[in-house]
């Protein structure tokens, strides 16, 4: 029984149950493509949440890391014929190294300035994708094959979903243990007050680098998975829209929660699909983007802790109401932060 209360065990069971759903039900291929996309965006959103939600560092250029991961995966499996898994790991590690550089920038810049610098970084890298045709094939785009793992080719969406789910689970568990440890507390401390964190002996240098490296790694892995799912990419996919969607995912889902990152990814991927089915809304150009923007404002105003914490927020509101009725004023506010 106790084992079931363990968050890691819960994540694992949930992942396996969800991974099997497509095998048991008859779901069409395009729906399954979307589900796979949710997994991929969940991965990058978790990484981005480590950066924004835990470490308090903004980036408006993270689409670049995902794009980089995608191109690296395409080149390594295509041109160099490396095995899929090795190439996937590299499509995470190489962006990670570049993430370290952005981390160094973050040591010198804060807040708005960091936002502007990372925005510039994202735009510059997208430009590189357009120009460096040897690597990206420019606007004609690059293709990739189905992944092959130990001689097995994964061509069905059901199977890709299982693969994605396993990788997502591994990255969720990694994030979970990382954030529960001393590292997690140091990141939160840095987010709350850099000055005090430093006064307690937390090295800003170390933790800013960790946050940027981890988030770039997650983004790169997401890019690699994307490449082998869609099997085609071109530079326009990796622009500011994606970077902003990423921001929307973690804000709407909930800052500093792993579950919220996944919910946010589901929200941003699925909502445009629902809108597409509503004829009247679908006729409005870019309605999905407009909707995302408003959803973000709405959540920030009314559920600042994100969808993942709406339950806790309501519970606390009710508790406070009862408390203030029972005895006016006394008793501290309960802990408003759900773990996870």
């Amino acid at each position, binding site marked *: 029984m106790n084992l079931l209360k363990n968050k890691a065990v819960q994540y694992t069971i949930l992942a396996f149950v969800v991974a099997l759903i497509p095998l048991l039900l008859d779901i069409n291929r395009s729906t399954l493509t979307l589900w796979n996309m949710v997994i991929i965006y969940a991965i990058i959103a978790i990484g981005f949440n480590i950066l924004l939600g835990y470490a308090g560092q903004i980036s408006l250029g993270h689409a670049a890391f995902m794009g980089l991961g995608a191109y690296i995966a395409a080149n390594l499996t295509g041109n160099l014929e490396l095995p899929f898994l090795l190439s996937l790991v590299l499509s995470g590690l190489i962006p990670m190294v570049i993430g370290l550089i952005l981390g160094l920038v973050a040591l010198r810049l804060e807040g708005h300035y960091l936002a502007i610098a990372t925005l510039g970084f994202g735009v510059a890298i997208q430009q590189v994708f357009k120009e460096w045709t040897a690597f990206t094939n420019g606007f004609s785009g690059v293709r990739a094959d189905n992944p092959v793992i130990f001689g097995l080719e994964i061509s069905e969406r059901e199977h890709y979903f299982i693969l994605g789910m396993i990788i997502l689970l591994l990255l969720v568990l990694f994030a979970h243990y990382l954030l529960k440890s001393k590292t997690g507390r140091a990141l*939160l401390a840095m987010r*709350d*007050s850099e000055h005090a964190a430093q*006064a307690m002996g937390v090295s800003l240098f170390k933790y800013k680098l960790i946050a940027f490296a981890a988030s770039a790694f997650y983004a790169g892995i997401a890019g690699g998975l994307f490449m082998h799912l869609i099997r085609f990419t071109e530079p326009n996919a990796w622009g500011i829209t994606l970077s902003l969607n990423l921001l929307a995912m973690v804000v709407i889902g909930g800052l500093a929660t792993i579950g919220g990152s996944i919910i946010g990814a589901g929200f941003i991927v699925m909502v445009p699909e629902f809108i597409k089915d509503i004829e009247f809304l679908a006729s409005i150009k870019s309605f999905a983007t407009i909707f995302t923007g408003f959803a973000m404002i709405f959540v920030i105003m009314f559920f600042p802790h994100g969808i993942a914490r709406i339950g806790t927020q309501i519970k606390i509101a009710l508790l406070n109401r009862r408390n203030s009725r029972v005895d006016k004023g006394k008793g*501290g506010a309960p802990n408003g*932060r759900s773990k996870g």
Partner: protein
Amino acid sequence: MLNLEGVHAYYGYIHALKGVSLKVEEGSIVTLLGANGAGKTTILKVISGVLKASSGSVTFLDHDISKLAPEKVVSEGIVQAPEGRQIFPELTVIENLQVGAYTRRDKKNIKSSYQIVFDYFPILKERQDQLAGTLSGGEQQMLAIGRALMAKPKVLLLDEPSLGLAPLIVKDIFKIIQEINAQGTTVFLVEQNANQALAISDYAYVLETGKITVEGKASEIKEDPKVLQAYLGGH
């Protein structure tokens, strides 16, 4: 124990410290008085390595610490409760204390440190699972001091712990600072509340626009007409 010799420090072109020398003897409470903008916090920043001195020396237990990164200074045993408390509002009280123990290597003894902090500040024990941002001002100050104690400091630096607190709470906090000192922690106290600070101190310095202008035993400084006028409300 802690020595500053002819320390100069700049913020860009602003010459904030103009040759500051001071000494904090082991086991004592030393107070640094000074008006707003005199450079008190700047001195603490130089000691803790956040701001590098452009010239002069900072030594601790007879070795140079002026080039150390802030986190190394903490490992040396110099820990501060910063100005304006700066607790971590979205961490619980207990998590704030955990961050305080961040540089500790002696994991086994950390438990007893919580006990020590809770003995000084029983209210923190009551509030241990509460988010620190929801504490009252006085409680936050206690947490800031408690958090610093978790690092097991040899020297505790306190930057205006009485700022914005009701007189009764200030009295409590100064009493506890005295107790902490009695248990063997050296205290370097930055204050504008001269009366109470001098009452618990052994030695005191007065800083004016980046220069030490008066120094002496706390009991003598209390009688110094210049200090009386400037910091003790002129009585």
